[in-house]
């Protein structure tokens, strides 16, 4: 509704301006008109557009170009001191893409990346929602609890991940010391493929809950208290109130945080890389850590292959965002 009103006002304003222009007997081109009307806006936006173009557009374009070549560390041109080496890489078309998509490694990594994302996002969301609901009521020491729950967010990511790595150490880690005291034999946290997967998910959930909690708490506080009062008067139980007031009231916030969290988790490089380096073996390697491995660990560095993986990751995320948006639009959400 609001959109409509806005449009009609703009149209009215435009017509008014055109009317005035007509009196002078000139009719400037569309571009010039847009520039003369909005020159101030264009000037304000220009630096951002240029910066974005340089730091995002150029690397992106270069990445797409590299993914169509056979560039690697040996054949790109470089000059090091007196040594000058000419660029000898060449255009290979879509070969890298067919190679990547027919490689079973890509499918394996994709499957685990999806499992990892779904597990992390769903657990983080449910925990965040539970904590937010608890913190949304009045009780003693609420501020202190909020502070404590937000703490993981205040610690730099790599510090927390290293701390967890010490906790998880099988022979000397605190977790196994505690379990040992309780009579449970050592759990191979990072040494067994399944446990390692559980461990990385646990750490990522731990890191992600504060964000979810804060966002959802904000959403909860924007739901008018009268709704709950009225529902209570009508005899609705706690579950019914949650189901019919809290959940719909949170939909706008939750749909956004789930989308964001999905994209972040899908590309969550530090947790995997610093905690397990993709190990044991390659069992916790996700798409981005594998792309990093190709570009920076293996030798000679495979720039083309890594760029291909990067473009594929971007494509997967874009498809996800489109589908997600469409399904939300069907439910009547607009964003």
């Amino acid at each position: 509704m609001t959109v409509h009103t806005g449009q009609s006002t703009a149209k009215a304003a435009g017509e008014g301006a055109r009317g005035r222009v007509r009196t002078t007997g000139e009719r400037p081109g569309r571009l010039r008109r847009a520039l003369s009307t909005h020159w101030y806006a264009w000037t304000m936006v220009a630096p951002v557009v240029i910066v974005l173009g340089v730091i995002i557009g150029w690397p992106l374009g270069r990445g797409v170009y590299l993914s169509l070549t056979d560039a690697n560390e040996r054949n790109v041109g470089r000059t090091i001191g007196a040594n000058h080496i000419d660029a000898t890489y060449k255009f290979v078309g879509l070969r890298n893409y067919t190679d990547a998509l027919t490689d079973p490694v890509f499918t394996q990594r994709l499957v685990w990346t999806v499992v990892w994302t779904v597990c992390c996002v769903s657990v983080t969301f449910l925990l965040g929602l539970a904590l937010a609901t608890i913190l949304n009521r009045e009780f003693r020491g609420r501020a202190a609890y909020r502070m404590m729950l937000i703490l993981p967010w205040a610690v730099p990511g790599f510090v927390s991940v290293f701390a967890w790595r010490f906790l998880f150490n099988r022979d000397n880690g605190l977790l196994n010391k505690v379990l040992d005291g309780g009579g449970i034999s050592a759990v191979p946290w990072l040494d067994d493929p399944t446990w390692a997967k559980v461990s990385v998910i646990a750490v990522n959930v731990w890191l992600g809950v504060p964000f979810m909690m804060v966002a959802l708490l904000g959403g909860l506080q924007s739901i008018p208290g009268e709704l709950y009062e009225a529902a209570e008067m009508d005899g609705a139980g706690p579950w019914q109130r949650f189901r019919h007031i809290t959940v719909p009231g949170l939909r706008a916030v939750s749909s956004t945080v789930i989308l964001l969290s999905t994209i972040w988790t899908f590309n969550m490089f530090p947790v995997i890389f610093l905690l397990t380096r993709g190990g044991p073996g390659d069992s916790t390697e996700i798409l981005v850590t594998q792309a990093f491995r190709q570009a920076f660990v293996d030798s000679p560095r495979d720039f083309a292959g890594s760029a291909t993986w990067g473009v594929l990751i971007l494509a997967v995320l874009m498809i996800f965002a489109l589908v997600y948006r469409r399904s939300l639009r069907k439910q009547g959400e607009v964003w």
Partner: protein
Amino acid sequence: MRRGIAATALVATLALAATACGGSDSSDNGDQKSSGELSGTVTWWDTSNDTEKATFQKIAQDFHALHPKVTVKYVNVPYGDAQNKIKNAFSSGSDAPDVIRSDVGWVADFASLGYLDKVPDAKAEEVDSAFLKQAAASGRYDGQMYAVPQVIDTLGLFYNKKMLKDAGVEPPKSLDELKTAAAAVKSKTGRTGMYLRGDDSFWFLPFIYGEGGNLVDAKDKKVTVDGPAGVKAFKAARDLVTSGAAITNATDGWNNMETAFKSGKVAMMVNGPWSVADVYAGDAFKDKSNLGVAVVPAGSAGQGAPQGGHDLAVYAGSKNLAASHAFVDYLTSQNVQVQTTKALSLLPTRTAAYDQPDVKSNEMVQFFKPAVDKAVERAWIPENGALFEPLKLQFTKAVTGASSPEDAAKASGTAFRKILKGWK
């Protein structure tokens, strides 16, 4: 853009060369050893471990006393990340180190990419005549010398003398004896026999040499890791873990191994001279004589450990080539080598250093020198470092039981052939 940078760099190099020449001309006062002619900053990326780094930092500072106009910037880069970090720095050129301590397995890789400056002819001649032959070989690529060997090493079987004595066994000579010894340690002391490092492919090499195999045959351009010897090697490593003779980890292997051994939780480990200083710091080795070292256990067809070590190389894009080469010269001088042997039990690369009393009397040198002489020299190909990545993956999978020895060997072979294009 690129050309712009290159041009600036060229101008800068020329300017520096000009000033350097001017410097040497003006200081032409007959005193050739005068330190006045060298100046500038030399950044050294050292990969020595936590126990060793203080010694090397001090040595680096001593160079400044020798050449007051040269400032040495000492940076310790953890060995595990070093190859990657060095490549990043070399390829971008910004904040690149002037001198690096490179694992012998990386030299060919860096050199083939054009990152390293050739060792000056005079120095190369000296290395050829005064250094250990197999150490000198590691610094060469394509007939040229790109790096000067700093230390040489190999793996040996470290054992806790007291624990083996309590268990009533001799230091094992073969994998079978190792299993018997481990069982005795377990029953007599309740401790585990051995720590097997499962997260680093260097520790796989004694197994494959023990079965009479090798990773590759560089002469015939053949991948041999997936041959019968390779399969047996993966089997033997796995067997140590399943039989209970050894414990292993898929992550943090280095720290866990050191902690377990030096605190007396395990009786044996396979390790190199670079770990000696750290072991001595442990509770179980307050009495240094408790540490014994033997040759790595033999497999079914042989006995051997890989030749390892570290070389020093100069970045081709360094702005202070003269000072950098002089610094490498100094680091590989006899005095410094003797100093590191005394402090850290590291093995010198100069033949004459072994005649020095401090080196001669060092117990670790007494053991490791003959071991190094017999160590298996690796193929010095640029892909050396690259091969270790997929091998590490398969080694970890094999020792933890995530894949069978046959599959691990086969997968390693496939990965090797992907890296070594055109090899059989």
